[in-house]
């Protein structure tokens, strides 16, 4: 129990000196110590602490320590009042009674250790109107003069549960199925869930999963049954209860997990092919008896339209119509051959078809370069004119310069 400031002041008894034992109503005979904030006018030091000059009387100081200890023990004893937990609806008006106190008794209420303004009191009762989540907390009521703790409660504001959302699915057929649930909106107070599974007249056991908490799994006791399963989930809290029931056929809830380890690779020397491989989901227990079929979708990143391929067996496929050089995104889904629904899409993988390495350009100039000794790749200096045949060697511009030269020479000859 926390000592509120008012209690502290009262215990101190401002006007009293720590002269020895002092009797305070409601408390055993004990010593009261002074508020250290009070100053001795003479020494200028807090009355409880005196340094230098006149020494503090050790006997009263010891009494103060003993008193403090006794007060704390007493307070703790009183705080062992039963702490109630009180659940109230959001928006409700809440009235708290101060234990056995009369209506007209003088009391002080606190919320989380902070005094509550008297305007919220109706006699000794605390009235909270239109409570919201911020009103949740610990409330305590103390008798006016004695500061006896008379009542304490923990107020939790919340709502009754709405209809829960329940789903069941078999991702490991024919072993069993699981059901999972959640509330569409929080209640802010603890909820308890109870699930029952009926298969005809037979009730099945739903074993709770350690994680997540809102899931349990059921083993199939029969296969291929036309008798439907009926699952009822009830959620209860201190403010109410709600329930939902779903009914389904054994086959209808079969939905495998997505394929695993999807890998897509280019095919050497094939600019339009991509080889895709994957594995059955590890949760599917018997692919020999219940083989899966697959649905593959792929598209280049630059386009939105998917292409689809359904594959009745095997765990690989070669895409043969990929756009050369374009990066593709590929996903795979799985479904039992005969029953249930398609899995979610697998994790997407990216791949780009094989492309040819760019070849080195081969020109006459390069050939000339390799046959002329003492020359190497030559970059003409900025001042060199393109048509300067003597300066430009090993450049494609040489061919043009020679042609120009011949034309000029021919024209010159004609004019001459």
């Amino acid at each position, binding site marked *: 129990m926390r000592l509120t400031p008012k209690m502290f002041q009262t215990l101190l008894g401002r006007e009293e000196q720590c002269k020895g034992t002092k009797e305070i109503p409601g408390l055993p005979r004990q010593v009261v110590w002074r508020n250290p904030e009070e100053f001795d006018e003479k020494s200028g030091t807090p009355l409880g602490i005196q340094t230098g000059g006149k020494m503090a009387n050790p006997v009263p100081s010891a009494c103060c320590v003993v008193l403090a200890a006794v007060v704390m023990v007493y307070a703790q004893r009183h705080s062992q009042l039963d702490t109630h937990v009180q659940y109230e609806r959001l928006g409700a008006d809440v009235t708290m009674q101060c234990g056995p106190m009369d209506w007209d008794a003088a009391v002080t209420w606190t919320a989380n250790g902070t005094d509550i303004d008297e305007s919220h009191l109706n006699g000794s009762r605390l009235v909270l109107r239109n409570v919201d989540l911020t009103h949740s907390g610990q409330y305590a009521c103390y008798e006016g003069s004695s500061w006896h703790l008379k009542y304490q409660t923990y107020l939790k504001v919340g709502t009754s549960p709405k209809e829960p959302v329940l789903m069941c699915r078999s991702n490991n057929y024919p072993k069993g199925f699981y059901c999972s649930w959640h509330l569409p909106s929080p209640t802010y107070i603890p909820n308890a869930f109870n699930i029952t599974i009926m298969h005809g007249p037979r009730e099945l056991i739903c074993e709770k999963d350690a994680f997540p908490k809102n899931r349990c799994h059921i083993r199939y006791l029969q296969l291929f049954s036309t008798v439907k399963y009926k699952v009822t989930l009830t959620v209860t809290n201190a403010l109410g209860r709600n329930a939902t029931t779903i009914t389904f056929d054994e*086959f209808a809830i079969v939905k495998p997990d997505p394929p695993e380890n999807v890998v897509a690779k280019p095919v050497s020397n094939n600019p339009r092919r991509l080889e895709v491989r994957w594995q059955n989901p590890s949760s599917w227990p018997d692919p020999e*008896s219940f083989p899966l079929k697959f649905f593959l979708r792929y598209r280049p990143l630059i386009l939105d339209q998917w292409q689809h391929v359904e594959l009745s067996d095997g765990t690989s496929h070669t895409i043969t119509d990929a756009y050369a050089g374009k990066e593709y995104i590929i996903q795979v889904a799985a479904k039992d051959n005969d029953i249930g629904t398609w899995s979610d899409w697998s994790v997407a993988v990216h791949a780009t078809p094989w492309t040819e390495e760019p070849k080195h350009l081969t020109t006459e100039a390069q050939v000339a370069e390799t046959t002329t000794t003492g020359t190497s790749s030559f970059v003409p200096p900025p001042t060199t004119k393109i048509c300067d045949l003597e300066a430009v060697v090993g450049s494609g511009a040489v061919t043009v310069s020679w042609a120009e030269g011949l034309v000029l020479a021919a024209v010159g000859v004609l004019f001459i």
Partner: protein
Amino acid sequence: MMASAEQSPVPLQHRNVCSRVILLARKIRSDVASLLESYVERQGLDRTISLDSVDGVPAAAMEQGGELTVAERLGANLQAYRAFQVLLGEVLEEQRSHLTPLDTDFHASIQSVLLQVAALAYQLEELLALLGHGRPVWEAAGPEDPARRSLFEMKLRGLKVLQELAHWTVRSVRDLRQVAKHSQGSGTAHGGQAQKE
């Protein structure tokens, strides 16, 4: 020599027959799924209606974990499809005589499924013989006096027949895969000739 070169190894023959039966079972399942949609629509029934009161239809349900021998698996399937032959015949007759006398397309759909079921039963008999198992004795139950059945009971019974048949086809596909796997593992057929290459 020529005969041995052309003869399929026995296990391969088993697997081929199993594959054919699986294909036929899946075809039946697909057709029955469509037929069920038509049936509930024409009879004005809700698919979720309780059919617990309907007797005399072989249930596909089997206890999980119970291992059956090849002969037991095939025998159970064969018995079921023989029963469905009879039941579908009765359903067809009730539709023609009482429930949907003018809906010849609907009758043709039922007839088509009936023929496929008959073919499947025949294939199962052949497979049993191929595997060296005897055919289970079939004793058809005496026909129930249709006059004892109300129109509503006829409708429910027809729905039950189709629902159980659909589930049997799924079971059959699984059973046939088990038989094929067993055949692959056993190498030689029971009482069959040794494989010749």
